[in-house]
């Protein structure tokens, strides 16, 4: 079939600003976006620039924005795109400077990945010497705990889709944090406490707004946002309870336990304490809400079935995933 493809082209290094260029090419019915780009490069304009390597959705080279959505060119079929959007419009990934056309600078992304110390870290004496006689014993369930995050191909689609990365350049982003969880979940790793401590600060796991864009963009079903949620849970378990994010979670739970429901009126006081200076900044908001009749009263009776709510919460708390052992592996 003969199709039209619009490609955003630019080369900042040579002073060429971004502009769209259209090409018409003949491609087979099941052509992918990558096939189409290659047809353009081969037959129409050899200077159209993009990355590719495996052409089978495993190397992570070819991520780009296709009709506005971040994803892999090599596993996106043109036909479906045309059906859904009536056009085929290709742009480089967002939140990364362009080198040329669809090729973006990858260093900023990898710097974020390196920041989570992405490797299994163990004390020197636990490092095996040659010849290596034993593997670490590990149940399949532990391997499965890392299954989602270890599928990541570092294609950067999630980073491009991330709404926080758009406004906060410090944010490490979904892929790097998912990678961090892969090691936090690894029974062989002994660096968990340090990892969680580092990522507890700005740019780390508390800065995610849980918009789910990364989960939707990911071509390999890594579910980065879920990994971030797991990191938060592990942080609280490991005693990192000082951040607003973790206070929000623990206070939320403690109110529900006391009253059987969320008491929004109490949340600010619970989190900040009865400190007038700290509560001051909340007052204008409280005033506006009160005028609209939306300010909930901070004093309630517990709901009638509160004991049942507590029972449910106790049961949930007991059902921790067994496979999860932080920092305890068979290192001998």
């Amino acid at each position, binding site marked *: 079939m003969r199709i039209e493809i619009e490609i955003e082209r630019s080369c900042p290094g040579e002073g060429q600003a971004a502009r769209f260029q259209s090409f018409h090419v003949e491609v087979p019915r099941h052509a992918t976006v990558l096939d189409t780009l290659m047809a353009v490069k081969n037959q129409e304009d050899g200077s159209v620039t993009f990355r590719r390597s*495996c052409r*089978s*959705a495993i190397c992570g080279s070819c991520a780009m924005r296709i009709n506005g959505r971040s994803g892999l060119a090599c596993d996106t079929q043109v036909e479906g795109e045309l059906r859904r959007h009536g056009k085929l419009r290709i742009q480089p990934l967002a939140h990364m400077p362009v080198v040329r056309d669809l*090729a973006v600078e*990858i260093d900023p992304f990898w710097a974020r990945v390196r920041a989570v110390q992405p490797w299994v870290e163990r004390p020197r004496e636990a490092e095996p010497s040659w010849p290596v006689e034993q593997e670490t014993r590990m149940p399949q369930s532990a391997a499965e705990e890392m299954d989602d995050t270890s599928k990541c191909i570092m294609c950067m689609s999630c980073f491009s889709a991330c709404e926080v990365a758009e406004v906060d350049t410090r944010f490490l982003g979904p892929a790097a944090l998912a990678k961090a969880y892969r090691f936090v979940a690894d029974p062989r790793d002994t660096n968990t406490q340090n990892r969680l401590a580092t990522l507890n600060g700005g740019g780390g796991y508390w800065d995610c707004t849980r918009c789910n864009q990364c989960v939707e963009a990911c071509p390999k079903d890594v579910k980065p946002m879920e990994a971030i949620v797991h990191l938060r849970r592990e942080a609280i378990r490991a005693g990192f309870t000082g951040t607003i994010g973790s206070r929000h979670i623990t206070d939320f739970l403690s109110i529900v336990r006391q009253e059987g429901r969320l008491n929004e009126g109490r949340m600010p006081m619970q989190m900040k304490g009865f400190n007038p200076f700290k509560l001051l900044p909340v007052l204008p908001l409280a005033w506006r809400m009160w005028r609209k009749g939306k300010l909930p009263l901070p004093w309630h009776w517990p709901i009638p079935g509160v004991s049942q709510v507590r029972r449910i919460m106790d049961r949930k708390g007991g059902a921790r995933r067994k496979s999860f052992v932080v920092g305890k592996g068979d290192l001998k």
Partner: protein
Amino acid sequence: MSMLSHDVIIVGAGLAGMRAALEFAPGVDVAMISKVHPVRSHSGAAQGGVNAALHEDDSWENHAYDTVKGSDYLGDQDAIEIMCREAPSDIRQMEHWGVIFSRNDEERIAQRPFGGAGYPRTCYAADRTGHALLHAMYERVMRRGVKVYEEWFLLSLIMEDGECRGIVALDIPTGQVVSMRARAVVMATGGYGRVYRTSSNGLVNTGDGMAVCYEAGAPLMDMEFVQFHPTTLKSNGVLITEGSRGEGGTLINALGERFMKTYAPNAMELASRDVVSRAEQTEILEGRGVDGCVLLDLRHLGREKILERLPQIRELAIKFAGTDPIEVPIPVRPGAHYSMGGIKADFNGATPLPGLFAAGECSCVSVHGANRLGGNSLLETLVFGRRTGAFVNDYLVGRPMPSPADTHRVEQEKRLAEMVARPAGERGWALREELGTMMNRNVGVFRDRAGLEAAVTVAANVAERARRQWVMDKGKIFNTDLTEALELQHVTELARVIIAGALAREESRGAHFRKDFTTRDDAKWMRHTLAHPDPDGPKLSHAPVAFTRFEPKERTY
């Protein structure tokens, strides 16, 4: 631009290259260059697994025997013994470095059966073994802080007084041509599957390192042995794992017959790869194919089994062939898959050129001989990557840093400038298709004198035209039109070597099948082919095969 300087330069950051980099003592200045970011290397595409005799009931001798037999007795037995003996340690090392291998009930590394192996000794990480290994290896490289020049393209070796003193490379993002001197150079640039039109290999597997070393005078060994995988997708050659046949998938022709019954009545679809590929090709050539393919039928397995055991295969078939195997058979055909041949190297990675070493798929040690077993090539990258790194680490002692002339860089700069300056001509992709199609037809699963002689002419002709091809992109920054043009020159050069070897080898052994010489001829051909560069095309010589304990026998499965 001034010359960069490192103790060792490793070209290629796939499994073999990165494994070598991790072996150097802390004081050694190691740098890697790779035309793609390390995790984009093709090692990541390996699915099935990696072999090692881990279990008490298995032994490295059994593994070695299977490998020698699989190689159709062309593998060097000393090297094979080393690989199989050291395999368990290398696998466990990777486990300690963070690879998430699938586990058995005893919480140990799980192993699955694989073609041509007498014991289930293939370790795996679900169906993403290569990806798991590659990412864990890169994690170690990051931890060590090894310098990697990402997206740098090897142009030539710096050869002076017969020894290798560094390389010249193109920094793709900036377009600069740079000299890099080193006390030793390690080649780890992977395979040449893309010499063929239909290939399971990624677009980057153009055998650059082999071609560049060959031009510099390093002999290429056993290049005529190219493994064809029986089940690759028609649209783009993406691999459909052997596991789909292991689960009960059948191969049928246009008449709906399970044609394997005429070729391998016992093993049927699970006969060895070369046998199945030849059977498929025969059906297609004799007109019983479907649009140049045969059909891989999984329908009788039922929806549930397909979804449970072969989910990724289903996904690939839907995405890349537009067919859902639950409802319709998948069209498949043999595709070039693995390069048994490569830069001649010994089991420490040393090539005949001083200062130059090689490991991984670009090298020929030779542990695969005429046919490699599935799961042995990932193993090769680990064992020989490590051995090469360790050997070069010692080799550096007392070897001074060379001071090569700048002329090597100037020469390459001039060459690239000329390529880019050419205002018109034939486009490389068209030449590539012409060459690849011919290679599939004449130098594929079946070969004969007439076809190979014709191939010599076509390849020489394409090589000549490739020298004058038209690079449309005139830019400096990230000029991939230029790197693709260079890759075309490499594949044409390698094609000529493959053809020359195939034409000379008048026998059938492993993956090399001559319709005019259908049997193995040990008296005459139990020897390696060596190819040397010459203006009139490759010059061939021979080298003996190393034997230790396994006597040649007829190879039946």
